[in-house]
């Protein structure tokens, strides 16, 4: 049997105003990062319900990263502060459930930080890949 090369599956939630634009800038500057990272656009990082993160893990994601505006720069004034608090709680709970801390992350990426976006994704993908497949929360019933 041929062993398929392991590729992590990473879901990135990016806020429309800063991080999504940062990701676009990374593209404009042709800064490479792994194709394992798939971006979902949300209006603000505070739109990300912890449920979405759990859903991603349940469906077999190996890592979930949230990107928002830098603290104080939120387009909606205070959204990213809520994100920070909510995700601190969620991630510590996931940690308790043996979902390693390296599989979850909140990062602040501004619209000018294309290089930071690419570097963050490279680093995150590398750390997640080192941990291997996430089976802890994966719901096998979802596997087809």
């Amino acid at each position, binding site marked *: 049997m041929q062993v398929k090369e392991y590729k992590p599956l990473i*879901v990135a939630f990016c806020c429309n105003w800063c991080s999504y634009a940062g990701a*676009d800038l990374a593209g404009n500057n042709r800064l490479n990062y792994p194709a394992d990272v*798939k*971006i979902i656009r949300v*209006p603000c990082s505070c*739109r990300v*319900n912890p449920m979405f993160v759990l859903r991603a893990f349940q469906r077999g994601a190996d890592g979930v990263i949230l990107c928002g505006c830098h603290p104080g720069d939120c387009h909606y004034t205070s*959204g990213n502060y809520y994100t920070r608090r909510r995700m601190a709680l969620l991630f510590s709970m996931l940690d308790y459930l043996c979902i390693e801390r390296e599989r979850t992350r909140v990062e602040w990426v501004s619209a000018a930080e294309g290089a930071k976006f690419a570097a963050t994704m490279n680093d995150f993908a590398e750390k997640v890949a080192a941990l291997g497949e996430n089976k802890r929360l994966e719901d096998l019933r979802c596997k087809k």
Partner: protein
Amino acid sequence: MQRIGVFVCWCGSNIAGTVDVVAVAEALKKEPGVVFSANYQYMCSQAGQDLIKNAIKEHNLTGIVVCSCSPRMHEATFRKTAAAAGLNPYMVEIANIREQCSWVHKEMPIGTEKAIILGKAAVAKVNLNTPLVPGESPVTKRALVIGGGIAGIQTALDIADAGFEVDIVEKKPTIGGKMAQLDKTFPTLDCAACILTPKMVDVAQNEKIRIFSYSEVTDVKGFVGNFDVTIKKKARYVKEELCTGCGACTEKCPMKKVPNDFNLNMDTKRAIYIPFAQAVPKVATIDPDYCNMLKNGKCGVCSKVCAAGAIDYTQKDEFIEEKYGAIVVATGFNPISMDKFDEFAYNQSKDVITSLEFERLTNAAGPTAGKLLRPSDHKHPEKIVFVQCVGSRCDACNEKGKEYCSKICCMYTAKHAMLTRDKYPDTEVYVFYIDVRTPGKNFDEFYRRAVEEYGVHYIKGMVGKVVPEGDKLIVQASDLLDNKQLKIEADLVVLAAAIEPDKSARPLATLLTASMDTNDFFTEAHPKLRPVESPTAGVFLSGACQGPKDIPETVAQAGAAASKVIGLLAKDKLTGNPCVAHSNEMMCNGCSSCERVCPYGAITYEDKEFRMPDRTTLMRRIAVVNPAVCQGCGCCTVACPSGAMDLKGFASEQIIAEVDAICK
């Protein structure tokens, strides 16, 4: 079931170079709901758009996915295309396969695979899209300015100049604010009254402007374009429409020992008063705390001497309700209280004064008619010590002062020192400073002139304590550059007190649901790009209520706020962003979680009657989102414990569908 069309763009070789666009179009054709798929070199070109339009008509498409560049680039373009073909523009989704795929990945198989997944996610989302229509609301073409200082005056004049009606609400009996109390203004040294009072007269004579003096805003309801405001007109016991401002009453009133707050209580006024000669409106006001007639019904002198018959001891507070389209906050500032700074002996000696008091002492219309005399014995001071940064730039845990730099103190202290040396060359003037901050046009030149031409002694160091001894004040201070401790026998000590927002700002912010920082300054919608707008739509900021400012900056900001108001009032209708939150009233339990996290105050509660299956009715409290105020961040959707709150265009279901599509 949706009928979805997928359009894959080559973007020349930008996408097609790393992504097999034909394979992507083929793969996405198999997705649920997709009935049509195509690829084309430049989808954003006229020919590409025509391709989309024709496909929509030909295949009766209910939704489209365009796999192309970033939605930040061409989402608007494709939405217009869809609208032109009769499709709701919010039925368009973009899969970003250029910036986030072809440009960052180098190998064709990898790029193609990712592009297919991104396309699948967009298809999954568009399957759940619903047509959205932006809400419209009318605009009341009138503005309210709260605060009648130079900021409020300038804003009102500029708005009125554009042809819109403006009302100014001022809590004092006259407009003019702090600037009316000043003597000269830096750095040009023109007299404040000479440049302010003509503006005050302009306000009074402008047909578009109404002044509610001695009034306060007590209630604000509604939202951008449609505010309902209640204004309390406090009883001044004088009929405004009859009073001619002749001043006969203020001369004859027997109650002479009323502290004069306009002169910062350094002299007295009568119980019936006009704050200063150029007051607007020039109408007398009775202070009910001192008037004998109001207190115990004995006196009535003013009513006897008033030829116009304007005195009315039975006047009551009046509540006026008005409608406005925009509100400008211009509540201004005050110097902080010096009570906590025992070391400067402010409460022990009359000769320790604040800079604003010094301003009145040197003002020709002030308590000493412009002669610089000590408040205690009315002697001419021979040695004056100015202390800067009193209460500014303190540590966060310091309870006495403020963390921020008050910005204007360096310049007005230089002005005071210079004017003193100019008028009284025999007077020694010392200024103790930590840093001299003079960023501004002609500011540093002004400060240097005070030192070089007028011989003001600037000493780097702080005053440690002031001790009254006889008729002198012993000032103990450090000279850091000379590494010495100085003891100066001064006649007058002037404290450059930090400034803080007016106390009325905090309750007003609550009424307006406008946000404030920890220092009670109003926060801007964006600190750099939207500095005169509050995050609450329709509320604008002018002057020192937003942060410490000098007069030129205040006037500039007032004009900017006015232009934003004019921009709003010039519209007949406001079109909102349709991607707003909405609550499912069957699931909402009225817990207020969403209201607490909303930065815009867009969520309110109402009691709604529900019919139960057994024909009884039930009253339940439910959340209602005002679509004109909501900006669509979605914070409330996560805070909602029952899942009743959702965001149109970014619904939980849609985002989960995207997650599922990506993780498949």
